[in-house]
């Protein structure tokens, strides 16, 4: 548009200032912190020393960090897989008309609008030693003694992953459902007439046509899952010990429980590198996809 272009810049100022001060600046500050020995004492005393990459070296050698990295990969991989499959099946189911559809659709959104402290508290109870899962499994005679879902060495990461899968269903459902609505119904109908069965229709019509939406859903899902914090913090605080940490909860615990801000920042920088890498990788897949289609 030709008129008043310079004045229109003024409208960008609030967003630029805000994101600059509360987004970019903290990130840069983060990077500085990761190169210093910042603990509560050195921070208050103003005596934090530059230590170069010592925080990174210490982090990468730390067995807790290594376990956390594995946990983050398990958590992200399993969450993405199951959220996607469940969301996709729901989208297929809701892509036809039936009575009360609108109401049921709103109810499926519940995990998304429920405050995280509420769903987190539920899963904390659900998975506790005397909680509902063990309650049902024991009374149905499926197990002999309670499974320590969130109090053992090996189970907690899988328990929080299950909780996160539940949390991610609405997001996958909504994106895939919106995508499905964009596919002309005639395509399914003609395939139906040609004698294609349900599996053939899904695999040879729906999935290929939905590809761009599927890639977007998985990309965003991946980015949102890698950074999950609240849910895990409320259910296990990364414990018992440090066995169920994700990169996000490990950094938080290093900062606010151990007051080791320098090392927390190093973990965050590693996490940011991971997220940026993932975004770039997935974007290049998407670009290739679009290129091959165009």
């Amino acid at each position, binding site marked *: 548009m030709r008129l*008043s272009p310079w004045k229109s810049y003024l*409208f960008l100022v609030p967003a630029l200032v805000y994101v600059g001060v509360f987004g970019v600046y903290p990130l840069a500050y983060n990077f500085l912190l990761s190169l210093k020995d910042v603990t509560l004492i050195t921070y208050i005393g103003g005596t934090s020393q530059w230590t170069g990459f010592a925080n990174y070296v210490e982090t990468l050698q730390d067995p807790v960090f290594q376990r956390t990295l594995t946990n983050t990969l398990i958590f992200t991989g399993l969450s993405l897989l199951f959220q996607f499959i469940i969301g996709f099946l729901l989208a297929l189911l809701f892509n*036809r008309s039936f009575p009360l559809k609108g109401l049921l659709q709103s109810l499926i*959104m519940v995990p998304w609008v429920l405050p995280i*402290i509420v769903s987190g508290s539920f899963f904390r109870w659900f998975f506790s030693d005397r909680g509902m899962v063990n*309650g049902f499994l024991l009374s149905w005679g499926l197990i002999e003694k309670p499974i320590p879902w969130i109090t053992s060495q090996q189970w907690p990461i899988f328990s929080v992953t299950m909780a996160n899968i539940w949390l991610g269903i609405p997001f996958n459902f*909504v*994106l895939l459902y*919106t995508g499905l609505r964009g596919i002309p119904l005639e395509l399914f109908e003609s395939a139906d007439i040609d004698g294609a069965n349900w599996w053939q229709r899904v695999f040879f019509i729906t999935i290929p046509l939905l590809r761009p939406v599927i890639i977007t859903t998985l990309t965003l899902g991946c980015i949102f899952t890698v950074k999950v914090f609240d849910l895990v913090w409320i259910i296990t605080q990364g414990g018992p010990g440090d066995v169920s940490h994700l990169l996000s909860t490990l950094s938080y615990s290093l900062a606010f429980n151990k007051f080791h801000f320098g090392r927390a920042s190093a973990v965050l920088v590693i996490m*940011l590198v991971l997220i940026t890498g993932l975004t770039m990788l997935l974007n290049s897949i998407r670009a290739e996809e679009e290129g091959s289609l165009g």
Partner: protein
Amino acid sequence: MAKKKRRKEWTWTLIALIPTVLIIMPLYFIAIGGFQTVAEIFHRPPYWFPPHPTLAFYKSALVTLAPYLKNSLIIALGNLVLTLAVALPSAFALAKFRLKWGKATFFLLAFSQMLPATAVIIPLFLIFNNFALINNYLSAILGIGIFTIPFATIILRAYMQAIPTGLVEAAFIDGASLLHVFRSIIIPLSSPAIATAGILTLIMGWGDFIVSLSFLKDQAMQPMSIGLYNFIGQYGVQWNKLMAGSMIFAVPPLVVALLAGKSIVAGLTAGAFKE
């Protein structure tokens, strides 16, 4: 024939009911948990209905949480005002003008949406601490803004792009100022998107956990989410109060979501399918 088709459609309702019930099951168990004693909550096998329902825990949760309510309202509403004040003008500029900095700003906004909360909160904690902002509502409002502002801007921009540019140009030719166009054309025409973005911002501000947990250490300043977290004490969880309080805390967003189901879905997808 029509009757048969109708019956077939109801069959699909029944099929769709199964996953829906499974998904909202946690909410049901939270709701009945608040009517039960701790012994009943942990009864084996778990109760499907509270055997001796009592309102006592809902009452006591309400009493304990009442002081936190004011803080939740201040933070959620303050965040709403901040978010709209920043997101509306920038969405307008990004949607309607080709600016040299436009692409960069949009990229920055999209990028902030990808940021892990902890990556912002840990450095911000130290920065706010320097400015004596810790334990101040402003710290929570500004902190939540980093998640709500990019989200709201992207939703509003997507909607404003669909407003015919001719309308804006005609107003300029008639001599209207930029501010006038923004106030008298863009804002009224975007009201559905403003409602959607506003609702989602309110829900996010109301449900915030990590920002308040990190910045509001003084109990007198904490919102209800942290009030509930305080029920998970160091020496044992007050389960029935936690359940009852959770239900009370969840009602406002649930009511809003059920009333505004469609626009929430629209907002989610506008935020996802950008460009």
